[in-house]
C-alpha cells in the first residue's frame, strides 16, 4: 500500500478492484490536513478517463507491472512507438504517456510499462536534462532563483513543446535539469 503522495504519473493503482493508470497528478497545497492530489486517471479495462481528488495519506495498492528498458523511436500518428534492445516495437497512445510527452525526444531512454502483455505507458527517470530552445534573454547578476520566467524545452514533437519555469539567469540553449515528478527546474548545467 502506498499513500497518494508517493504515487507517480505512470503508476498503476487498484481502485475498487479495478486497475487505473495515473496520467496526470496536480498537487495543491495549503489544506490544513496536507496536500490535495488531483489525478487524471484511466480505467485500463474500459479505457474510461476520469478525474479524482485524494488526500495525501489515502492509501492505494500499486500494481507492480513488468517493465522493460526502451527508447523512443518515432511518432506514428496517433501512436508513439518505442523500441527495446531486441528491436521489438511497442505502440503507446498519447493520452497514456501523460507528462512523459513533455520530455519526449528521439532516442530517449525510459521504461515501458506492461499490463496484460500490452505496453500501456512509460516511466521516466526522476531527473532528466533538456536543452532550452526558447526563452527571454538571461538577466545577469540574478542568481537567487526567486523570480522565474518561462522557457521552452526541446521535444520530439514541436507542437508539444513544454514550458518550464526557470530563474532569470538561465538563457536559451542552456541545458537544464528537471525533476520529472514535479515538472520543476532543478539546476542549470554549464561547463
Amino acid at each position, binding site marked *: 500500500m502506498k499513500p497518494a503522495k508517493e504515487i507517480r504519473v505512470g503508476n498503476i493503482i487498484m481502485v475498487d478492484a479495478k486497475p487505473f493508470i495515473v496520467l496526470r497528478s496536480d498537487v495543491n497545497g495549503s489544506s*490544513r*490536513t496536507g496536500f490535495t492530489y488531483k489525478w487524471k486517471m484511466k480505467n485500463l479495462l474500459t479505457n474510461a478517463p476520469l478525474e479524482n481528488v485524494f488526500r495525501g495519506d489515502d492509501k492505494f495498492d500499486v500494481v507492480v507491472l513488468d517493465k522493460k528498458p526502451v527508447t523512443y523511436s518515432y511518432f506514428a500518428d496517433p501512436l508513439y512507438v518505442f523500441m527495446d534492445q531486441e528491436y521489438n516495437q511497442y505502440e503507446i497512445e498519447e493520452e497514456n504517456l501523460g507528462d512523459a510527452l513533455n520530455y519526449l525526444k528521439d532516442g530517449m531512454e525510459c521504461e515501458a510499462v506492461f499490463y496484460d502483455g500490452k505496453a500501456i505507458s512509460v516511466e521516466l527517470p526522476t531527473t532528466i536534462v533538456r536543452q532550452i530552445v526558447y526563452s527571454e534573454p538571461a538577466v545577469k547578476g540574478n542568481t537567487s532563483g526567486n523570480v522565474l520566467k518561462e522557457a521552452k524545452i526541446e521535444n520530439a514533437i514541436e507542437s508539444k513543446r513544454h514550458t518550464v519555469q526557470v530563474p532569470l539567469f538561465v538563457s536559451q540553449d542552456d541545458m537544464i535539469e528537471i525533476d520529472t515528478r514535479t515538472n520543476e527546474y532543478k539546476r542549470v548545467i554549464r561547463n
Partner: protein
Amino acid sequence: MPTPTTLAIFCKVVDNYGDIGICWRLARQLEREHGVQVTLWVDDLSSFRRICPGVDVAAAVQHVEGVLVRHWGGQDGAFAPADVADIVIEFFAVDIPPRYVEAMAQREPKPVWLNLEGLTAEEWVEGCHALPSMHPRLPLTKHFYFPGFTPRTGGLLRERGLLAERDRFQADPAAAPAFLTGLGVTPAEQAALKVSLFCYRHAPVAALLDSWQAAPMPVTCLVPEGVATDTVEAFLGGPPNAGAVATRGALTVRVLPFVPQPDYDRLLWACDVNIVRGEDSFVRAQWARRPFVWHIYPQDENLHHKKLRAFLDRYCPDIASLAGFSLRWNGAPGEDNMERLSWAELWTALQADRNALLARGADWEKRMLEIGDLATNLLGFARSLR
C-alpha cells in the same frame, strides 16, 4: 431516490474553537433551516462547551438545540448500515471510524459522503471543488467540497436571518451600548475606538499594544479570556481574567469572558475594527461588515502566507494599508514600502483607509451573497448526487 433527511458530521477539534465553531453553525443551520436531522460527532466537548454553554461535557449522547451530539471517543465501535446517515460529512478530512465506513459501503442506497475542506481563496480550489474521490477498496465515492469566495465553490456559512439581525443591531443606537455594558465595558471605553482582538499565540500583540498606547486617539482593546494571555498579563500587571482592565496612555485593555457564538457576532458588530483568527471568526468578521484583520492558522513551510495573500488579492488588491498590516500581523514579507513602516504607521494608514474599508466590506458582502450560503449549496449538491 428519496430526499436526504439525515446527516452526520464528524468533527475533530484541532484549532480550539474554529473546527467545532464551523461544524456547530453548519449543524444548527441544517437542522433549523432545512429540516435535516443532524448528528454531530465531536471529539472535544470542552471546546464545544465554551462556544455553546448548553453542552454537557460528560454526556456520550445529548440533544443540543435540536442537534444530536455524540461524543466521538475513538475509532472503535460497531456500526450497521442502518446507523449510517443519508449524508456523511468528514470535516477537514478527518478519518471516520473504519467500521462506520464499512457500514456506509453496505448501505443501500449509498450515503452521500463529503469531505468538507478548509476555506481558501486560492485558485486551485475551483478545479477540485465537488470532484469525486473513489474509495481505494470499497464501492464508495466521496466528494470533496470546498467553501470559498467564487461561484465555482461552495460559498460561506451564513444563517438565513443573520444580516437582517446585524442591520437591526447596528441601526439601533442603544443596542451596541447595552450589549457592551453587559460585558462590563464602561461608557468611556465605548467612546474610544473599539477593537476586538482574537489571535493565535504567536501574533505580535505586544508591539501592537505599544503602538496603541502612543496613539493620538483613545483605543479600547477587547480581548477574550485565554487569548494572548502573556502579553495581556504583562500589560495589566495582573492575571488576565475576565473583567480585568487597565489603561496605559491612550490604550485600555479589557478582558472579556469567552462568549457564546451569537454574542461573539454581536461583539464583531459593535466594534470598529475586528482582529480575528482561523476560519470561523474570519467569516463572521466578513458578515460584520466592519474593517477586519485576519490572523491565519499557521502551516508548515509558511503555506498559510500563500493562503493569506490569495485572500488579500481578492479582497483588497487596491487597499495597501490592509494588505500591509495583515501581512505584518502574520509574519509574512510585504511590499518594500510597507516593510519600512512601524506598527504605529501601519495602524495610522489603516485608520486613514477606514471609509474605503467600509465600502469594500459592503461590496464584498454583495459578491458573497450572489454565491449563496454554504449549507444550502452543500445540501443542493448532495441532492444532485442522489
